Every structure is written in structure tokens, then in C-alpha cells.
């Protein structure tokens, strides 16, 4: 990301509707209104930042180490949007042996591959006739330190 874009994405407040927008920054009783009133922009919301489609976004807990190369560690919180149609390269939640698994989805030379991001794990190549069931696309992950 070039420096200018990065800079912009930090200072630019969200333009869509916010849930926390205060109506008035300051009660006008007597005296002077707050000089900041005209500049109230509403607080930034992590929900808004991480969730594009509220109704189809679910949180999933990651377990194990198969995706550490992609920055997903044991216990991390995955934000999963089910409304997105997966494309090759997406990290997805897929249904495998009746369980949910998080892997990178790769289409290569007619093959569908669920690729772990850890050399200790084997890639999963779907066999002919085996249907891939993608549960949702992972859009971000969050980590708490405290």
C-alpha cells in the first residue's frame, strides 16, 4: 500500500451512517457554543470497519495451527461473510467431513484445492464428483491481547 493511501485510510472518518453519531456535541444553554460542534464526525465503529453485510456476517472461532501462515492462530476470531461468492485465493470456511474448516481456496488447472498455510499440514485436493461446500468467506480476523 503506498504511503498516501495508508495515510488517508487512517484519518478519513467513515462516511456511511454510524450508530454512535451524537446529535449535538454540546448543549447550548447560555454562553458560547463549543467551537468543536461543527466538526463532530461521529465515532469510528469497528463493526462498520469489519462488517460489510450485517445480516450475513457470522463470527467463527479458529482452532489449531493450519493457517498460521495467513496470520490465523489458535483461538482467533474470524469474521465470516456468507453472502460473498468465493473466488480462488480467498480464505474460506468450508464443510469437510461434516465439520467446518478454515483454509485457503485455490482453483488450479481444473482442480479445487483447500490449501493450509502451514508446511506441517497437507493440502486437500477435491476428488472428481466431490462437491465443495463453502460455508462462508473469511473477511478478517481479530486478536485480543488482554
Amino acid at each position, binding site marked *: 500500500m503506498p504511503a498516501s493511501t495508508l495515510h488517508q485510510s487512517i484519518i478519513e472518518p467513515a462516511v456511511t451512517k454510524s450508530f454512535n453519531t451524537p446529535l449535538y456535541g454540546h448543549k447550548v444553554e447560555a454562553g458560547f457554543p463549543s467551537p468543536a460542534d461543527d466538526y463532530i464526525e461521529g465515532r469510528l465503529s469497528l463493526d462498520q470497519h469489519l462488517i460489510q453485510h450485517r*445480516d*450475513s456476517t457470522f463470527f*467463527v*472461532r479458529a482452532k*489449531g495451527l*493450519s493457517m498460521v501462515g495467513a496470520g490465523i492462530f489458535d483461538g482467533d476470531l474470524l469474521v465470516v461473510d456468507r453472502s460473498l461468492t468465493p473466488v480462488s485465493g480467498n480464505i474460506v470456511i468450508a464443510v469437510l467431513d*461434516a*465439520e467446518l*474448516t478454515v483454509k485457503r481456496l485455490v482453483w488450479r488447472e481444473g482442480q479445487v484445492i483447500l490449501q493450509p498455510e502451514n508446511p506441517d499440514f497437507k493440502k486437500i485436493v477435491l476428488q472428481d464428483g466431490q462437491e465443495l*461446500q463453502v460455508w462462508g468467506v473469511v473477511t478478517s480476523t481479530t486478536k485480543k491481547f488482554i
Partner: protein
Amino acid sequence: MPIALVDCNNFYVSCERAFDPSLEVKPVVVLSNNDGCAVARSNEVKALGVKMAMPWFQMEQLAKQHGIIALSSNYALYGDLSARVMSILSTFSPVQQIYSIDECFLDLDGFDPQSLLAYGQTIRQTIKQNVGIPVCVGIADSKTLAKLANHCAKKRFAGRDGVCDFGRYSVTQLSKLFATIPVGDIWGIGRKISEKLVAMNIETVEDLRTANQSRMRQQFSIVVERTVKELNGISCIELDGACTARQQIMVSRSFGQEVSNFDDLSESIAYFATSAAEKLRKDGSVAASLSVFIQTNPFKEKSAQYQRQLVVPLGEPTGDTLKLVNAAICGLREIYRTGYSYKKSGVMLMGLQPKNSVQAQLFNDVIEKGRSDKLMSVMDAVNQRMGRGSMTLAASGTKQRWSMRRDSKSPNYTTDWDELPIAT
């Protein structure tokens, strides 16, 4: 004027399957509170002959034999997924009427009639992909017909891939189809009316559609006459987009184990009153009176039976948990008798009205009222942020010996940070 009815397939079972793929294609049944009887069945369970509301003990043998998986109901999950489904459906039409937790009507007036079938498919695919819930869509010129079209889609009598648009069929084709469907399957025709109709040789949907309307009104009521009109594509039941405010709020439950002392019973009453008060404030309403009831187990015929209900007027209408709980416990004190084993209790709030239209009274304590409003909004905010029941009155107790038996409830996948689905 085309109307669509979108109905989720085996909704509670589908909610469970959305988060636990191992339940797919297996016979799954969801049991009511206290694991009493079947409230949702997967198709596999239906095929085994398990009927709706069948008590668990009656199917236990069958369950063992066929490996039926029985789950306790998880209303936190169903409620959340329902809200998501309804919210997405609302984007498909300017007028939506939510009819129940798993079905809603959509007004499709003004849409190109030729495109409705494809539109229904889009609705179905979107809900399936975005929330993981399979739905069926019925499209027709009245609500009753839309219901019927949905029924046909679900049972695969007509339509394709879970979508049925009666607008695509000729009158003759529909007549033929209707002649194969029993009259009792029509929306609004209950068991009693259907028995009477059959006795009059009106056995199928087609029989009722072609029945004499004024005769139907004389024999039954305007309701049945209206159904006949609706079956003929004349819309009589309006699509009411605006949600009518609730008239009453009832919270009651059977206990996991019977209780007999006053303290346990009052804990349950306080808990129910608290939960009813939350719903009341969410609607922006206040209640003018409250009713408390307790009852013993009517199925234990040998035990002493007792049941009482009492209405407690509230003076000034209120939405304050403290006041409602106090009133409920006062009421309980009046009706409670020792020496009985109680199985069920409940609280009902009545005389609901919008909070801001309450008439002021002469002896209102305005300052006190402001305080109560503040306290309640803090309580609601805390409970919303920290999870239900984080801040409650001590009156609702901590042991909750009376609480529901839900032995095999699935995790609260979408409403509890500690119970999220896990991906390896």
C-alpha cells in the same frame, strides 16, 4: 396483485444444521421446552412417521431404532437467524409482512409477471447462501393462494426447485391441481370447519373454490366466504406492512422440576416479569396491568391439583422492571398455597400502550419517573452488552431450580462469544 409467501423449511432444524453440518441428511427432531414434544422435524424424521407435537416418550423407541437425533430448542439461535432472514427478505419488496418466526409475505405488485419465477429463485438462493436456511416461495394473487402455492412448492405438487408461481398455470391446470389437495390444507380452514365441509361433500380445494359463496357465509361465517374469494384470486386479506403493536406480552414456562416453596416460585415469577418487562420496553410500550398465574401438573392425576390466576392493576402504566416484579410477587403472595407441587408459572402484561401517549396523573412523581426511566435504560444497555441476565433483580434468584430442562441444547452460535462455531 401478486403476493409471495416465503416460508423457511423445517426452520428450527435448518437453524441447527446451518451450524452443525453433521446433522445434514440425518433424522433430526427439535423438542419443545422441557424436552416435551416435537416442535420441528427434518424430512427424514417426517418420513419415519413422527408427527408434529408428538411427545418424546412416544417416539423414544423409534428414535433408538433409527438413530433420530433429538435436540432441545435453542430460541436464542432461532430468533437471531429469523431476524437475519427477515431483514434480507425486506430488501426484496417495499412491503413486507412478517407472519411468524419463519414466514413472511412480500408484496410483488408492479413486478414483471414473467420475471416472478426467477425472482423467487433469487430470493431462495440468497437466503440459502447468506444465512444457510432453505426456504420455499409461493406466488399468487391472494394471501390464501400464496400460502397454497408455497405448500405446493414444499410438497413438490407444483412449481420447481422450491418456487411455485400460480400465475404460470392456466385455470384448467390449477383446477386439476386443486382437486388433488384436501380442503383442510387451506390456510384458515381449521379442523372443525374442514370436517363440516367434508360432510357437505366439499373435500378438496377445488370444491371449496367453486362453492357457492353466499351459502358458505350462511353455513359458516364471513371468514370462509372470504377464503372462497381469495381462492378465486380476489385478494381480501390485506397485506399489512405496518406491524401492529402487541396487545399483551406473556412469559411463562413449565419448570424442569416441580417446585413447592414460595421462594422458588417467586424467583420464577420475578424472572418472567423481568423478561416480559424487557420485551415491553423494546416495543416502547408500558403496561396498565399484570396477571400472574401458577399451576400444578395436570398430567399427574394422582397429585393434588391447584391453579390460580390473578390480575394486578398497576395504577399508573409502567415499564419499570422493579414495579412490575413487585406487582407480580404481590399477586403471587395472594394466590400461593402451600402443599402443592407447582409445574408452571407465568406473567402476562396487559393494557399495553405506547409509552409517550400515557396520560399524566394528578399524583405522578415526575422526578421519580425520570429516575426509573434512567435506571431501566442502564439495565437494558448492560444486558445488551454483557449478555442477557447480566443485570437482574436479586428477586429472580441465582439458583433457578425451576429453570427449563434443556438437556441437549446446541450452543448459542450467534449470540454468545463463548459459544461461537469452531473451524479447524
